[in-house]
């Protein structure tokens, strides 16, 4: 375990820590579901035990008037538990819906999973390995990708996890409310050191977080780092202002539909932009001749995230 806090004695734990209101909400769902589960099962346990003792062989009891079929009873014990549990389906789906839609004002942190560590990049350019610092009171969106196999970022204190896939961005978000130290894990088996691919999650008050950011130190924001890469990798030669080659204008590109050669369009999200940098021959853009070279194997994942961060800012600047 990396950097575990170590009190001398650990009591028997029965309830996990919750760092957000959403986590408490999930706890209520689990608690209520457990109650209904007991409601449905305890009578069965009692009935079986009672019947087994009451009607055991050799005892003189009334065994008459039984039937071996009763459609009404059968339908009722099929359907009543079903509809009872459907309430929990709906409740769970509703929370899940919230978990799937991050607020627009969320603070976006980039995460990369690789065998066997996590790398996080804050918008200000501060990077950290395995541990993650987040502020309270503000929604945080984690945009993540894997560099090799499938991992999964698991934050039990928020009751959420999301797999990181190679070649595709996935997201999760939360709104931390209780400052403290919590754990984070990789929960999808990823090879040799899977069980040490974990770290600590520091939930801090906004002022503490700001102090931590300044101490963590970074001269440049992600977007600024991306801007530098944009010229270093020669992107600006074609896509920049005043370029001689006719290349698609990237300003305002992010989250807009792009017309595709042969009809249709795709939304230019993070995964699309990443894919376009690495495999420019996929999804040819209508009205442009494909001349861009592939950057596959040239630009590492963290720099791709910086470039995308810069391309996103081009929307506001134009």
């Amino acid at each position, binding site marked *: 375990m990396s950097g575990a806090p170590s009190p001398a004695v650990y009591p028997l734990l029965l309830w996990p820590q919750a760092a957000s209101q959403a986590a408490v909400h999930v706890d209520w769902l689990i608690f209520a579901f457990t109650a209904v589960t007991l409601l449905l099962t305890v009578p069965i346990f009692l009935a079986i035990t009672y019947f087994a003792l009451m009607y055991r062989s050799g005892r003189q009891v009334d065994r008459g008037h039984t039937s071996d079929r009763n459609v009404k009873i059968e339908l009722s014990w099929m359907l009543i538990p079903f509809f009872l549990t459907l309430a929990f389906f709906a409740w769970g789906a509703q929370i899940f819906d919230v978990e799937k839609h991050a607020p627009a004002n969320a603070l976006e942190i980039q995460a990369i999973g690789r065998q066997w560590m996590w790398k996080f990049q804050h918008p200000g350019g501060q990077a950290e390995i395995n541990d993650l610092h987040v502020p309270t009171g503000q929604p945080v969106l984690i945009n993540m990708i894997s560099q090799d196999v499938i991992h999964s970022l698991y934050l039990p204190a928020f009751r959420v996890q999301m797999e990181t896939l190679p070649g595709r961005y996935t997201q999760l978000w939360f709104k931390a409310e209780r400052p403290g130290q919590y754990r984070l894990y990789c929960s999808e088996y990823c090879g040799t050191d899977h069980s040490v691919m974990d770290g600590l999650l520091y939930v801090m008050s906004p002022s503490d977080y700001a102090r931590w950011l300044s101490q963590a130190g970074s001269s440049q924001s992600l977007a600024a780092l991306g801007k530098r890469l944009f010229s270093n990798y020669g992107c600006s030669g074609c896509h920049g202002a005043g370029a001689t080659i006719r290349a698609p204008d990237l300003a305002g590109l992010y989250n807009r539909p792009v017309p595709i*050669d*042969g009809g249709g369009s795709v939304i230019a999200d993070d995964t699309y932009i990443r894919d376009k940098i690495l*495999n420019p*021959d*996929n*999804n*040819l853009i209508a009205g442009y001749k494909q001349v861009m070279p*592939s950057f596959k194997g040239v630009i590492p994942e963290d720099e791709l995230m910086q470039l995308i961060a810069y391309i996103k800012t081009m929307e506001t600047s134009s």
Partner: protein
Amino acid sequence: MAEPVGIMLAEHFSTVTQQRQAAKLGLWAWLITELLLFAGLFLCALIIRIQHPASVTLAATHLKFWIGAANTAVLICSSFTMSGAIVLSRIGWRAGMLRFMLATAALGTLFLLLKGFEYYQDYVEHMVPFLSGPYVLAHDQASRLFVDVYFITTALHGVHLITGVSILLVLTWQASRPHFLTRHQNRIEVYGLYWHFIDLIWMIVFPVLYVLNR
């Protein structure tokens, strides 16, 4: 010339009809599993086509359409010869049945030879992305996925055909001995089902890979 036709009753069956129907049902069950095996690949091919229509069209134009079409014709002919063998086995004309079976095996072999030639052409034209040599569509990542599925599907079908021809040759040898039709006519019927099924799979492979994407 005609000899008596029938099957020998195995001791755990009570009637010949029961035994015949059991064999037929068993083979149908097996064919369903085969169909599902290929269905997964067809599904992959269709998903790739939906996701990357341009790349798939590009890759499909490099497939040897006419060899595929010729092979389709070869297999249709082989289905006819196999049906002929079954019909003759029912009336007990063993010599004619054997010739039809050999013709079926020959057509199956012809299919395999044509397929081998097609693979060779693919190799010459650098259409084999998983070998170390160059790949002619290397700039198009998604095309590679389609070509991979093409190779896996046709190779899996080829394995079935090789198995089919081998069993057919063994069966022909067995059937050339006297009294075969008296005891085991059912085997010809059951094998015929399998052969028609291999043909049927190709009738799906050809449009899904070659025709639909052109």
